[in-house]
């Protein structure tokens, strides 16, 4: 049933273009990063977009004549639970159907730095295969290694590197100690706060 549903293709006109829209270009699924309505004077209008190839991650500029329509990409964002990595693949499970999927290094990209057991991630599927993995916006992780803290020094605003179990390195305030749990914004890779 799912397969037949996904075969119904929609088309998007340029007036429907917006950031995040998934479209097919040159046989590859793309995501619109930005779209600008261009109409110099009284003439023809265009949609000047920046699109990300969801397979390669490459961002290019594409210009469309206003009124053109483009096939939608059969791309679906699904919430999935991260299970484990076998070194080559990262395994995820759909928490409602219990269906499991393996994402390769290309799909996971830098997200592996923030993947911890049972984290609920957004997995982008193309034709049912994982294309990209987006970790939760905020994660809480334990510091495995950092220089000794400077007690009482909470005001100077200095930072030091802290190492996390996944291989991620985060700049933390000087008073944070090894073994402490911290909250991190995965979009910027920045320390947010200490978790008690």
């Amino acid at each position, binding site marked *: 049933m799912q397969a037949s549903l996904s075969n119904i293709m929609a088309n998007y006109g340029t007036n429907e273009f917006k950031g995040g829209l998934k479209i097919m270009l040159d046989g590859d699924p793309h995501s619109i990063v930005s779209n600008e309505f261009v109409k110099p004077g009284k*003439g023809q209008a265009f949609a000047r977009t920046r699109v990300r190839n969801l397979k390669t991650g490459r961002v290019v500029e594409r*210009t469309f004549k*206003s009124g053109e329509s483009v096939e939608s990409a059969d791309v679906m964002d699904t919430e999935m639970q991260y299970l484990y990595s076998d070194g080559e693949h990262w395994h995820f499970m759909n928490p409602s159907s219990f269906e499991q999927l393996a994402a390769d290094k290309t799909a996971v990209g830098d997200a592996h730095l923030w993947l911890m057991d049972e984290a609920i991630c957004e997995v982008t599927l193309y034709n049912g295969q994982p294309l990209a993995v987006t970790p939760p916006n905020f994660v809480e992780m334990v510091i495995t290694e950092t220089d000794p803290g400077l007690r009482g020094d909470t005001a100077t605003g200095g930072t030091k590197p802290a190492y996390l179990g996944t291989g991620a390195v985060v700049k933390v305030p000087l008073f944070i100690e090894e073994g402490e749990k911290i909250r991190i914004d995965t979009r910027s890779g920045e320390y947010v706060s200490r978790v008690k």
Partner: protein
Amino acid sequence: MATVETLQHGAQLRTDVRHWMVERNILEVITPVLSSAAVTDPQIESFRAESGAVSTNAFLQTSPEFPMKRLLAAYGRDVYQLAPVFRAGESGRYHNPEFTLLEWYRVGIDHRQLMTEIGQLFHSVAVSFDLQWQADEHAVYWDVVESFLEIPASSIDTRSVARYFADHERSWPQAIDDDLDAALDLLLDEFWLPTLPNERLTFLVDYPASQAALARKRVDARGRAVADRFEVYVGKVELANGFFELTDAEEQLARFEADNRQRQRNQQHPMPIDRRLLAALEHGLPACAGVAVGMERLLMVLTGASHINEVLAFDISRG
């Protein structure tokens, strides 16, 4: 949403414009926003006004040009107005479907003289906003195109423009097909616009005859078919469009009909032709030049706003 400072700047700009018009004895007028006729230009889409109660076949104006020309034909004197205008489907950094045009007509002068006046008006409002814009520059449309493509206008087609885009690794919309006007528009937008210095007025003049709209056509000294039409840019922002106005009723009707045929080829609705305008032209429109200035864009340039929403009290999504 505009800040209260921006609203004040908008008010100041309108006051400056009105003073400037009064000093030149140009009469402020108001013409109907609703009309039973509409613009035929395939690149401009009108909103149709609907009413649940009464039967209506009215369109919101996309420009006050037609009724203002009827006033010119009737009274033969200089007129201007600050008019709300509506264009369906135009939304973006420099576009809102509802915006304000400063439209004015001067009897007995051509577009060259009108450009001088526009320069004076723009420099004077700039000064009142403590800005100093550089001296004006004129660029001839075909010269600009030829300078990029390095071939004479007569041998330029969409393939030569497409090749230029490919050579410069720029995206080319295949849908342009053999629409040369669209191809030239995109060429100028991609390659010429970015070269314009900020804080300078640039007049792009002598448009290709195929883009004459309501301007007179002629053949230039180099044998190229051109229109007496210009556009004004401040920095990289297009602010105004003007014509040495077409006064020939027969040719005006032919252009309206050609527009409607093009609309049908594009699978757009043909629009009701303004017969009252044609009657006015028949009666006699004095030789005149006219220009329309986008007031929100002018305010953007004067206040350094980067999006039209910053100068509108409420943009279309909040209207």
